C-alpha cells in the first residue's frame, strides 16, 4: 500500500486499538556454536569470516553428525531469562522443527517447542515521554540460527526469480535465544514507540549481561513485530500480521506505525486483514506480503532424540541469579544521576537507543556531557541521513578517543564533526583520520602569526580600528585567518594573537 493510501495515524487510533506482540532473536556471543564446536561468527572475534569457513560436519548437517548442547549458551540463556524476570524450567527439551529450505542444513531446526528454558516474565520499558510500561514476556527459548542465502540474478534479490543462490553456513548453528512477548495491550498511540523502546531495553539487558554483541546492523538482534487492530469496544482480537526484516530501532517504530495505518485503512473500508508474514522495506518505509502464514503451517515438531533434556541445577540458577547486573530501570536511574543529565537530555539518549553507547563511551574516558553530545548530536544526524542507527556508525571507544582529542585541543568541534564523518564512513580511528586528512588544529603560533600578519597587512583599515580600541573589528581578521588555516586553528588563540600582533605592530 502506497503511503498516501494509509489512514492518518491519529484517526486510526480513534477507530482502533492496536495490539502488538514482539519476537526478538538474540544471537549469543559464545565462543562456539549452539550444537557444534565450530567458532561462532556472532562473537566479534570471528565476525566477517570468509563464507563456509566456520563449519563442522554438524553445521553442514553431514550424514552421521550429531548435535551437542553448548553449556555456555545454556548459561547465557538462563541469565537472559532471569534478567527478563522469567522462571527457569528445571527441565526443558529441544525439539525438531521440520521444513525444507536450502539454508537449513538438516532441513530441520533444533529449537525448543513445548518446553522452553524460560517462561512467564516481564520487563520494564521506559518510553521517551517518561511513561513506564511493563511488557509481559511469554517465553524465551534456545534454538540454532540458519545459514545465509545470497540470491544471484533476478531483480528482487529474493529467491523467486533468482538465477542461482549461494549458501553460507557460517551462521548455521549460531546460538539464538528467541524472546516472545505476550500480546501487549494498552500501549495505544505509544505502541510504535513502545516496540522500539522494548527492543532497545532487550539490547541493554543483553549487553549488560555480556551475552551478545547485540548489534542490530549485524543481525545480532532481530525483531519480528506482530500487529493487529480491533475496533474500539470490541473484545475479539483482530487478525495479526508479522513484519519481519525489521533491523534497526527506527524501523521497528516505523514498521509498527505503518502497519497500524495500513490495517486501519483496510478495515475502515470493510476489508479484511490477511494473516501473513510481511517484509519491511527500509527504503520506501512500507511493508509487503511475504508467504501467507496460517495455523496450518505444519512443522511436525517432535522431541529431538539426539539430545537429552536440559536440566540446570538449582545451584547453577541461583549462582547466575546472584551474578545478574542491576535491572534496566534501576540501571537507568543510577546512570542519569551519575551523569547529571536533565530529564530531556537523558530522554534524548534513551530515544536514540544510545544508553549503552553513552555508558561505554564514558567508561572509555569521555565526560558524560561529551559522550551525550557526540552520540545524540552529530552521529544521530549522520545516522538519520543514512537511515540507520547511530550505534552502527561508531564504537564507544572511537567516540571517547574523539572527545579526548577535542579536550586536548587537537580538534575543534568543527573539525571533530569532520572526523566523525570519517569514522562513520569506516576510515579508521579518529587519530588515524586526523593524521590521514591532516585535520589537527594548527597549534604552531609561528604559522598563525604569519597568517595574521598577512591578514592585517591586507586590511589596514581593520588594523587601524583595532588600534583605536575597537576590538570587535578583530572578527574580520580572525575569519580571514581561520579561512586561510582551513579551519584548523583554535579561534580563541587566533583572537589573542590578532590583538597581540595589532598592538605590537603599533
Amino acid at each position, binding site marked *: 500500500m502506497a503511503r498516501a493510501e494509509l489512514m492518518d495515524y491519529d484517526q486510526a487510533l480513534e477507530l482502533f486499538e492496536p495490539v502488538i506482540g514482539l519476537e526478538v532473536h538474540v544471537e549469543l556471543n559464545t565462543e562456539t556454536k549452539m550444537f557444534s564446536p565450530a567458532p561462532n561468527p556472532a562473537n566479534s572475534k570471528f565476525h566477517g569470516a570468509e563464507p563456509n569457513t566456520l563449519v563442522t560436519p554438524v553445521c*553442514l548437517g553431514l*550424514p*552421521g*553428525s550429531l548435535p*551437542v548442547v553448548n553449556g555456555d549458551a545454556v548459561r547465557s540463556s538462563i541469565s537472559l531469562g532471569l534478567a527478563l524476570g522469567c522462571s527457569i524450567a528445571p527441565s526443558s527439551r529441544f525439539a525438531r522443527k521440520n521444513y525444507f529450505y536450502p539454508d537449513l542444513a*538438516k*532441513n530441520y531446526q533444533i529449537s525448543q517447542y513445548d518446553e522452553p528454558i524460560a517462561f512467564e516474565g516481564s520487563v520494564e520499558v521506559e518510553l521517551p515521554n517518561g511513561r513506564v510500561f511493563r511488557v509481559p514476556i511469554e517465553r524465551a527459548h534456545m534454538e540454532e540460527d540458519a545459514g545465509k542465502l545470497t540470491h544471484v540474478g533476478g531483480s528482487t534479490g529474493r529467491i523467486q526469480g533468482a538465477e542461482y543462490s549461494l*549458501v553460507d553456513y557460517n551462521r548455521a548453528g549460531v546460538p539464538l535465544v528467541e524472546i516472545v512477548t505476550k500480546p501487549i495491550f494498552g500501549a495505544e498511540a505509544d505502541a510504535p514507540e513502545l516496540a522500539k523502546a522494548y527492543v532497545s531495553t532487550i539490547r541493554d539487558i543483553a549487553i549488560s549481561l555480556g551475552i551478545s554483541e547485540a548489534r542490530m546492523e549485524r543481525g545480532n538482534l532481530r525483531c519480528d513485530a506482530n500487529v493487529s487492530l480491533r475496533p474500539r469496544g470490541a473484545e475479539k482480537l483482530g487478525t495479526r500480521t508479522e513484519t519481519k526484516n525489521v533491523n534497526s530501532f527506527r524501523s521497528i517504530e516505523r514498521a509498527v506505525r505503518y502497519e497500524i495505518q495500513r490495517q486501519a485503512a483496510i478495515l475502515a473500508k470493510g476489508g479484511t486483514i490477511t494473516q501473513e508474514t510481511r517484509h519491511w522495506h527500509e527504503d520506501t518505509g512500507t511493508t509487503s506480503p511475504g508467504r501467507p502464514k496460517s495455523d496450518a503451517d*505444519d512443522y511436525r515438531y517432535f522431541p529431538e532424540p539426539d539430545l*537429552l533434556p536440559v536440566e540446570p541445577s538449582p545451584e547453577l540458577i541461583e549462582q547466575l541469579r546472584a551474578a545478574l547486573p542491576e535491572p534496566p530501570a534501576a540501571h537507568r536511574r543510577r546512570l542519569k544521576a551519575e551523569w547529571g543529565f536533565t530529564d530531556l537530555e537523558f530522554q534524548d539518549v534513551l530515544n536514540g537507543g544510545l544508553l549503552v553507547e553513552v555508558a561505554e563511551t564514558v567508561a572509555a574516558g569521555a565526560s558524560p556531557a561529551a559522550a551525550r553530545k557526540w552520540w545524540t548530536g552529530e552521529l544521530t544526524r549522520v545516522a538519520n541521513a543514512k537511515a540507520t542507527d547511530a550505534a552502527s556508525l561508531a564504537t564507544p571507544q572511537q567516540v571517547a578517543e574523539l572527545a579526548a582529542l577535542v579536550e586536548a585541543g587537537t580538534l575543534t568541534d568543527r573539525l571533530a564533526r569532520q572526523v566523525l564523518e570519517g569514522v562513520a564512513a569506516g576510515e579508521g580511528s579518529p587519530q588515524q583520520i586526523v593524521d590521514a586528512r591532516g585535520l589537527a588544529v594548527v597549534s604552531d603560533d609561528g604559522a598563525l602569526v604569519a597568517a595574521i600578519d598577512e591578514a592585517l597587512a591586507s586590511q589596514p583599515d581593520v588594523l587601524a580600528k583595532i588600534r583605536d580600541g575597537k576590538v570587535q573589528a578583530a572578527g574580520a581578521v580572525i575569519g580571514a585567518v581561520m579561512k586561510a588555516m582551513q579551519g584548523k586553528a583554535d579561534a580563541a588563540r587566533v583572537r589573542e594573537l590578532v590583538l597581540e600582533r595589532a598592538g605590537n605592530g603599533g
Partner: protein
Amino acid sequence: MSDLIRLSAADLGERLAAGEVSSVEATQAHLDRITAVDGAVHAFLHVDTERALATAADVDRRRAAGEELGPLAGVPIAIKDVLVTEGMPSTAGSRILEGWIPPYDATPVRLVREAGLVPLGKTNMDEFAMGSSTEHSAYGPTHNPWDLERIPGGSGGGSAASVASFEAPLALGSDTGGSIRQPAHVTGTVGVKPTYGAVSRYGSIALASSLDQIGPVTRTVLDAALLHDVIAGHDPHDSTSIPDAWPSMADAVRRADVAGLRIGVVKELDSDGFQAGVRQRFHESLELLERNGAEIVEVSAPHFEYAIAAYYLILPAEASSNLAKFDSVRFGLRVTPDGGGTVEQVMAATREAGFGPEVKRRIILGTYALSAGYYDAYYGSAQKVRTLVQRDFDAAFANVDVLATPTAPTTAFKLGEKLDDPLAMYLNDVATIPANLAGVPGISVPAGLAPEDGLPVGIQFLAPAREDARLYNVGGALERLLLAEWGRPILDGLPDLSTHELLATEEGAV
C-alpha cells in the same frame, strides 16, 4: 582356503602378537578370500585393498618397533556402510549417497583404527538400514553363504555374510530393530546390540536416533566381546552416549559360568508363530543351560505384542526427519529436472531418483505420523507403548538375570520371497524390536541348524540396560557347551563357496 581366514579374531590376534604371522599376510589372505567368493556373496560394496594393506603394514612396523598393541591389532574388520569413513565411500546402501566421500570417521571407526584393526571395506545393507533381508540395498542384494538363494538377513546382511563366509573375522553392524541380531541368526554368526548409549552413534548415518546402536558382528562370543571393548565408551560428540566406564566384556566371556543364573523365557515369544526347528533348537539350548546350573523361568511381557506397531511409528517418524538432509544441496546425488528447476524441484527430483521404495514408504509413514492432528494418536501413542514395553522389561528383570527368546521367527527365507509384502518382512523383527524400544542390550548366538532345512538358528539373550556383561557370560557359556556337543564350530558346515562359481558353470553346461 588359507587357514588364516578360519581363525577367530582372538586367535589371529594372538598369532600376530606372537609374531607367527604378519598383519599384511592376514589382511592379504582375507582380501584374497573376498576376491574368491564375494562375486557370489556380494557382502561388500567397497573394498579398499590399498589402504588395508598400508594399515596392516603400519601395524606390523609398530609391532616390530616394540609398541604396545591391543589384542585385536592387525586383525582385519569389515565395516557396515552405515558408518561414515574418512576417504572411503559411505552410501548406507542408498543411491542418494553414491560417490560421496565423507570428510570424517565415525567414532566406532576411529576407535577400531586406533586399536590397530585393519578396515577392509564397507559392507552391503538395506538402504538406510530399512529392511530385514538386504534386498533393499540400491546396489543389489547380499546372498546368504549357507544358501546363495537365500537372504542373509538385514539390514546388516553384508556384515553378517562377510563374517560367515570368512571374508573378515570381524564386522561392525548397526541395530535399530534387529539389524545385527537377525542377520546373525540366519548366518550362524554372533551379533550383539549393546545397551543404547554404550557405543557412540557419531558418524552412524541415522535411521532412528532413539533406537540405533552400533555393535559387533563376529563368529565367536569372545571376538564380539573383544570388539565390544574397543568400541564402547563415552563420546563427547554423542550426547546420548553413557558417561560411565564399562567392565571388560572379554573377561565376562572368559569367566563365563551359568550356575545359578536365572533365565526368563518370554512366553509371548515362544509360540506357534515360530518355525518348528527354530523353537526346537531354542529349547535344546535352554535345556543345556539348565543342565549346567541355570534356572529357567517363564516370564510374561504382555506389551511386547504391540512393540512392532509402536516401532513402525517411532522409526519412520524419526527417519522422516533424519533423512530430510538428503536434499542435494551439500553432498551426494543431485538430479536437476529437464530444463532446470527451482531448489524445491531439484530437491524433489533428487529424492525421487535417489531413494528406493522402502525408504519412500517409511518417509511417508513418518511424515504422516508426526503431522498436526495425528501426532497424539500415532507418535504419542507409540511412545506410550514404548514406556509399557520398558515396564515389561523392568518387571521381568526384577525376577530374572537375563531373558531368552528365539532371535527371529524363521530361518533364512528365499530372496524375493517377502519383498512384495512389507508387513511379512516387518514381522521378522518381532523378537528383536522390544530391546531397541527399551534400550536394553541383546545378543544372538548360534543354536544349531534347523532340522527341517539345515539352516542356522540363533538364540537371543537380553539383559537390563548397562548389564551387557551378562550377555557375554550366558552367550559365552552356551557357545562353549554347544561346541562340546557338536565337536566343531557351526560355520565348519558352511558350503564351499570357492567352488560355487565353478559348480554353477558345470550345472549350466549340463
